[in-house]
């Protein structure tokens, strides 16, 4: 079993829909939970991060972390065609040598249709 599981999709929704993306994980040492967006042939860019359990909102994006269930979610409200990308969940916990290495899910490919 991989440390982080994410349904790769693909996921296709109409413009304006609410999108729900999620990941599960097995390592209880993870402390930081991130969502990255990756456009084709580009590097990942950070959307949001959350420390420990709880919710965090930033504009149309809401991130939720439930450490008791080892489950994280990203919600996108009023989705736009420009949101079409691959969304990667990532997690980290301090490890060897102070490394904050990220453990990623496979990514979910999202298409928002006009």
């Amino acid at each position, binding site marked *: 079993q991989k440390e982080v599981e994410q349904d790769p999709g693909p996921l296709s929704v109409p413009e304006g829909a609410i999108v729900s993306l999620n990941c599960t994980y097995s390592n209880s040492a993870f402390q930081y939970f991130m969502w990255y967006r990756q456009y084709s042939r580009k*590097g990942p860019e950070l959307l949001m991060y959350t*420390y420990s359990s709880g919710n965090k909102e930033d504009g149309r994006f809401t991130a939720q972390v439930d450490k008791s269930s080892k489950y994280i979610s990203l919600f996108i409200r009023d989705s736009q065609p420009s949101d079409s990308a691959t969304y990667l969940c990532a997690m980290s916990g301090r490890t060897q040598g102070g*490394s*904050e*290495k*990220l453990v990623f899910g496979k990514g979910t490919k999202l298409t928002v249709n006009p």
Partner: protein
Amino acid sequence: GAGVSQTPSNKVTEKGKYVELRCDPISGHTALYWYRQSLGQGPEFLIYFQGTGAADDSGLPNDRFFAVRPEGSVSTLKIQRTERGDSAVYLCASSSYGGGAYNEQFFGPGTRLTVL
């Protein structure tokens, strides 16, 4: 300001050849990471530098892979005797290092390596 840059953007090589991939981190970032992203997968950690030293190389798949960061800035990932399974996008990320606080990793665009 300038972000993380990686060169070359694409590299095609033949099986058995040696390749070097370069990463220029954001100025002043002491932490540097290399990841490898295979097709349809998320990035996987390879190695972490804090300054000039490799503090965590637990993700390197075997001894054909090696990385250096001699002056604490630019880093080079070196792959010897390349194999077709090494084909992937190699991503570099850098961050400031602030002890216990969260430090965002900023990613470069990656080098797409194809081994024929």
